[in-house]
């Protein structure tokens, strides 16, 4: 049984850097630098990492909201990258995006009703009545009321706006949703409401999620498998519990140890990474972490480690674990 919904192979997304006298392209930001992964049906695959690691660009490249430079994205046995612009546009009813910032992701001049009917009018030829029915269905799902349909986004709180965004994403009944930091802009008490909603919707509508976040606690809660990204690459990937309980890559370990403790009596022993993330324009030779890693060896400066299978679906890109 083929349980894979989406398979990404060697995805690269580079942005040109212009400079010099004639504004020629002098280099590339290696935002996403050769990554591969698989997402199973009705599961949640999380991309986790710090700002600038390329997790958001990856999410957007999958939907071709940002055009990837090269690679293969197989979605339901079809290479999405090869679709024409028009075919891709139509495909979007099945692949949707939820945004981080509920304040800027909704057009301030459209009512909730208009915002929700737009995807339907774009992709289906439905009668007004059918559209209305579909809208009623979706607001019930996300916990909005009928009275709120004629209001504008600024009349809602952050949590409610995120509900509107989610409704807009699921109203065309997609099977695949990329959620890009959907709870990062929200307060803790609202965050959990939205996470619960996403989990419920996944069960109800048989959704497959790619969940992008910098918050390791949130990721652990919602995902089945995780890929940890650093400087445009996946450094470690595997089943969520496996990664959280027996992380292998020094970066994953540092990341996990950096999360503040939830109990003042249990002070964690921290692995502190030195310095800052290097520029993605000129990523270092060898392992991208070598300048900051405590266990760096001489080989790390020269040869870039590839993801290697550690068994149980656990892959790590680090020289420490090579024979």
């Amino acid at each position, binding site marked *: 049984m083929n349980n894979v919904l989406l398979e990404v192979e060697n995805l690269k997304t580079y942005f040109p850097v212009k400079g010099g006298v004639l504004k020629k392209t002098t280099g590339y930001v290696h935002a996403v630098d050769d990554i591969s992964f698989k997402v199973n049906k009705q599961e949640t695959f999380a991309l986790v990492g*710090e*700002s600038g690691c390329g997790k958001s660009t990856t999410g957007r490249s999958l939907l071709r909201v940002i055009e990837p430079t090269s690679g293969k994205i197989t979605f339901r046995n079809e290479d999405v990258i090869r679709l024409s612009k028009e075919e891709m546009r139509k495909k979007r009813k099945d692949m949707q995006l939820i945004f981080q910032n509920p304040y800027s992701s909704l057009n301030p001049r459209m009512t909730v009703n208009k915002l929700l009917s737009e995807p339907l009018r774009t992709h289906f030829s439905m009668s007004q009545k059918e559209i209305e029915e579909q809208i009623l269905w979706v607001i019930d799902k996300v916990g909005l009321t009928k009275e709120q349909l004629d209001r504008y986004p600024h009349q809602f*709180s952050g*949590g409610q706006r995120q509900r509107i965004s989610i409704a807009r994403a699921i109203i065309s009944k997609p099977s695949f949703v990329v959620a890009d930091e959907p709870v990062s802009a929200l*307060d*803790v*008490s*609202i*965050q*959990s*409401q939205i*996470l*619960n909603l996403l*989990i419920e919707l996944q069960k109800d509508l048989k959704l497959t999620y790619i969940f992008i976040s*910098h918050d*390791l*606690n*949130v990721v*652990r*809660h919602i995902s089945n498998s995780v890929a940890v990204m650093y400087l445009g690459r996946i450094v470690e990937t595997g089943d969520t519990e496996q990664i*959280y309980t027996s992380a292998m890559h020094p970066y994953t370990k*540092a*990341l996990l*140890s*950096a*999360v*503040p*403790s*939830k*109990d*003042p*009596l249990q*002070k964690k022993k*921290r692995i*502190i*990474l030195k*310095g*800052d993330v290097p520029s993605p324009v000129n990523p270092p030779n060898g392992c991208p972490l070598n300048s900051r890693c405590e266990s760096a060896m001489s080989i790390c400066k020269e040869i870039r480690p590839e993801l290697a299978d550690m068994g149980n679906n656990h892959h790590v890109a680090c020289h420490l674990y090579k024979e």
Partner: protein
Amino acid sequence: MENILEVKNLNIDLITEKGNKKLIDNVSFNVGKKQSYGIVGESGCGKSITALAVMQLLSFPLKTSGGEINFHSEKESVNILSLKKNEIRKIRGKEISMIFQEPMTALDPIFTIERQIIEALKFHTDLNKKDMSDMALQMLKKVGIPRAEEILKEYPHQLSGGMLQRIMIAIALICKPKLLIADEPTTALDVTIQAQILDLMNELKTSFDTSIIMITHDLGVIAETCEKVAVFYAGQIVEETDVVTLFHNTAHPYTSGLLKAVTSLGDKSKNLFTIPGMVPAGGHMPKGCRFEERCNKKMKICKDKSPELIEIADGHKCRCWLYAESGDN
């Protein structure tokens, strides 16, 4: 323990065309000498403006409308709210310093790092230029900046957020203040950089003998850095106690809700705990308890009458009818 700062019945108003809205309602708390005092709450609860009031940095349309903020330096004790402009200036940066949430915008973009560090010394000391430069260099080294000599000559836009926050700390500590107010100092930073900055602050606190007020929305940051904590909700303190009691003997339903939301997160065996509803909007405060609508332990009285902040155990204050009744009986 001796106190360095005593806030008594502080009120802060937002001036609008339709009259004033009370954003901070009779807040009182004390910060001990060399203590790390945490203020935690969600956005809009009034934690940041309280900090600004301590520095007398509130600007129109915000203003303090009552209360006292008593600061006890080695020489004298003063009520900050009654100080004149030129008097508070001698305290800012010298006795009390502050660092802010967004290091990227907190420094003047057209001056070098060196000039901005020296500026603080210029206001409060009579050192000559050479000595000030030396001190700036020493300070940068203390906050763990690599190639400090070069960085001194650079401009803010050339540095990363983590570096800039270190520089902000250097500026704040260069006159050896007695109290450091940190307003969400790591919120804009990545976790690994946050870990660096929190470590640095804990370390400098001991070597500089300063008290710290740590303002944050993140209970994790509180657990890592603070000794005593006040939980703010909708412009009031709802619970205040030492950090261990707060986490292990939580009294207020809001605090325990927040903690449960955080601790159940990541643990898939438990359902994710949620607090339903949302914070009442400023200016439309209910007449009873401000948390009543969202509370899972509410009683009849909660809707009608606002509870007071009372001491429910030694050094543990809570604003909730659950405990007020037991006190009465």
